[in-house]
């Protein structure tokens, strides 16, 4: 083309082509420098990166070996198709939860540069090939293809199928990220990201559950789902290889074509979103609409709670449980695990009614590092504490807010576990134990909040500021050991009543005794913590202001 036309057009096209190539190389180099500079920041980060790379590589190698071992298995195609489908799902969901993971992912940073969408899309796509994630995916895809491919034709198809599958995954991630970038860079999106850990935890539970089902029922269960998924890109690339192996070339070609069409579609969508993003004003510069907040609810909450300082503190604490993403995530995790452990164990028949104490223990953890949960806003509290009495009221308010949730919840979990195991005679003693444990946790929690405060970073999924991990360990594990020790009298009494003859008639005594013991120890703990808090206000403030 350039030879036929005049030199002017020729150089123009060449320049455009050169520009496209240079944009790609610049973006790739940008990505590499970002990676390198990120690692240069600290030795810990470098170590973490190297460790996670090694881990991922090992994991990938394991998968690769596993998949190669699967070769020849009757259900190999089903397993690999599902695996690739799950991989694609991971790529689609990943950018929503880890938006800050890749800075080149955020096209709004490139908004000021004179770039055309087409070279930009190409550059960003190539840049996103760099990293551990794509490498891992490549291993998985290669392994999957090896597991299903039989015959020269199938291997020939694989050469196209693997890169195609990888590109579909990447384009999917990029398209999803670009479409949601407004959400992701807003406050709501960052709040959402904090909850990502939860989704992963729950997802892991589901996978675990599914794996157990498969173990008992066999891989054959996968076949119907795999039959459908082998037509869905990018899993259809594995489906194509499988079809070609079996000699159905038409089906194979169709499946491969589907993935190619999907790639083209995703690239088109992505490029359109990019164009729109880079040519329209950023929403953050437009004033946000005033959200209509229901005042009645908060007013109602205020009416139920006691008046004065105690009620004010309780109201604030309870609002934060709901509104602060970090606090909310911690609470939801505690509530979920506190319920799942005793109830699932009871379901599987391996449970003991004493596992119900787990709920009290998990919720009690929320009392640790109370001031860290305030972040540097703790100064507002510090300005109003001028005596141990003030500190006592503050800590008591927080403990009461905690009890509003934990007391009914621990009771509910205990009753539920008892009902499932049909151990009604043991209910009073388990409740008594739970309440004693809760009291001990509240006491040690208040004390260690005053003695070992640490910062909780508001961004990301870390719960400890760098350099304060030791403090957090002392605070939580020391506190839990101390709580267990504090509960020894009640535990000893429980054991004694259960082993002595005729002691069973008196186990109901543990309910009032355990409750009274828990209440007493809480009050004592709060008193001790209050005098410490009152004298250590500036130290606590500087410890919690690092995030």
């Amino acid at each position, binding site marked *: 083309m350039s030879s036929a036309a005049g030199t002017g057009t020729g150089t123009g096209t060449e320049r455009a082509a050169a520009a496209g190539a240079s944009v790609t190389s610049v973006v790739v180099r940008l990505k590499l420098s970002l990676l390198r500079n990120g690692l240069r920041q600290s030795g810990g980060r470098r170590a973490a990166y190297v460790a996670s790379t090694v881990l991922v590589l090992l994991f990938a190698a394991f998968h690769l070996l596993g998949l190669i071992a699967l070769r020849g298995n009757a259900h190999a195609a089903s397993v690999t198709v599902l695996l690739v489908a799950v991989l694609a799902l991971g790529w689609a969901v990943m950018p929503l939860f880890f938006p800050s993971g890749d800075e080149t992912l955020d096209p709004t940073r490139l908004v000021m540069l004179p770039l055309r969408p087409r070279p930009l899309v190409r550059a960003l796509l190539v840049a996103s090939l760099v990293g551990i994630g794509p490498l891992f995916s490549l291993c998985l895809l290669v392994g999957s293809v090896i597991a299903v491919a039989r015959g020269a034709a199938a291997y020939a198809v694989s050469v196209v199928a693997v890169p195609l599958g990888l590109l579909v995954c990447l384009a999917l991630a990029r398209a999803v990220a670009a479409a949601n970038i407004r959400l992701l860079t807003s406050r709501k999106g960052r709040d959402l990201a904090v909850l990502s850990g939860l989704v992963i935890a729950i997802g892991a539970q589901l996978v675990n559950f599914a794996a157990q089902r498969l173990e008992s029922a066999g891989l054959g269960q996968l076949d119907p789902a795999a039959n459908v998924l082998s037509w869905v890109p990018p899993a259809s690339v594995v489906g194509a290889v499988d079809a070609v192996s079996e000699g159905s070339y038409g089906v194979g070609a169709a499946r491969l074509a589907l993935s190619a069409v999907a790639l083209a579609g995703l690239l088109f969508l992505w490029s359109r979103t990019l164009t729109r993003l880079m040519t329209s004003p950023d929403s953050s510069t437009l004033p946000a609409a*005033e959200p209509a*907040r229901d005042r009645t609810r908060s007013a109602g909450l205020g009416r139920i709670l006691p008046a004065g300082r105690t009620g004010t503190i309780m109201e604030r604490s309870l609002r934060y449980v709901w509104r602060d993403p970090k606090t909310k995530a911690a609470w939801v995790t505690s509530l979920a695990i506190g319920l799942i452990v005793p109830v699932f164990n009871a379901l599987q028949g391996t449970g003991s009614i004493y596992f119900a104490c787990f709920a009290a223990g998990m919720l009690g953890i929320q009392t640790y590092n109370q001031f860290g949960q305030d972040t540097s806003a703790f100064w507002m509290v510090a300005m109003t504490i001028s005596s141990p009495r003030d500190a006592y009221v503050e800590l008591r308010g927080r403990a009461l807010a905690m009890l509003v949730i934990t007391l009914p919840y621990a009771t509910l979990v205990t009753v539920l576990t008892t009902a499932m195991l049909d151990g009604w005679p043991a209910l009073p003693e388990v409740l008594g134990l739970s309440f004693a444990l809760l009291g001990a946790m509240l006491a040690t929690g208040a004390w260690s909040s005053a003695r070992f405060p640490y910062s909780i970073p508001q961004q990301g999924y870390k719960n400890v500021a760098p350099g304060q991990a030791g403090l957090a360990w002392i605070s939580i594990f020391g506190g839990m050991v101390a709580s267990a020790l504090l509960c020894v009298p009640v535990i000893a009494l429980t054991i004694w009543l259960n082993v002595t003859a005729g002691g069973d008639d008196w186990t109901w005594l543990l309910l009032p005794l355990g409750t009274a013991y828990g209440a007493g120890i809480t009050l004592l703990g709060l008193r001790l913590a209050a005098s410490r808090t009152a004298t250590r206000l500036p130290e606590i403030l500087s410890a919690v202001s690092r995030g």
Partner: protein
Amino acid sequence: MTEGAVGGAAVRVRGLWKRFGQQVAVAGVDLDLPAGRFIGLVGPNGAGKTTTLSMVTGLLRPDQGTVEVVGHDVWRDPVEVKARIGVLPEGLRLFDRLSGRELLAYTGRLRGLPGAEVDKRATQLLDVLDLAGAQHKLVVDYSTGMRKKIGLAAALLHNPEVLFLDEPFEGVDPVSAQTIRGVLERYTASGATVVFSSHVMELVESLCDWVAVMAAGRIRAHGPLAEVRGEAPSLQHAFLELVGAHTRDTGSALDWLGGGAR
């Protein structure tokens, strides 16, 4: 330099020191701030203004030295001091998952004011500070200017005798700045003391009647505005002379920028 009468000092600082590791942030500050004035604490970034204000308000423990606010020692008698001061710190968050109104309600009640009184004052403050429209929005979604204003409202709620404001105009738009000025002028007219830090000289010059100049952790000059300014045409000039920042010759180095060396 003239000082206020001994009884008339709102804040008295003696021998205040603070080190962070190797770095000395505040290196022996002695200062008497007269009551009933609009006082500006000025200095370049890193001069120790925030550290000093944090120590004066009891948010940071000094390595050495004493601080008295309206005659009471900040560290030995916090009950008397904390009830009498209002603070707007810089770089510390508010309870920003509360709405503006909830934050004021929380702060006022925590300070021990009766609930009805808190709500009445909060409504007035929100109106005056032009935040009534955003009162049910979470503070985390506020702009910088709005945050400074809600922080100011929270600091004023219990009608303190001395108000400490760390960079109250930093990042604030002109309209909000004017609103804040109006409220502060009204507040000092009632006989209260405002101490605020800033590195914007024009602002300090137009607002304050008493200034203390800080650089490298020490007080370089203090007294009524006119006295500190002396012969210099403006506080900016006096300040640059005091901290020893001479105009650098930028002429030859940036010749590609055009304009020529002057």
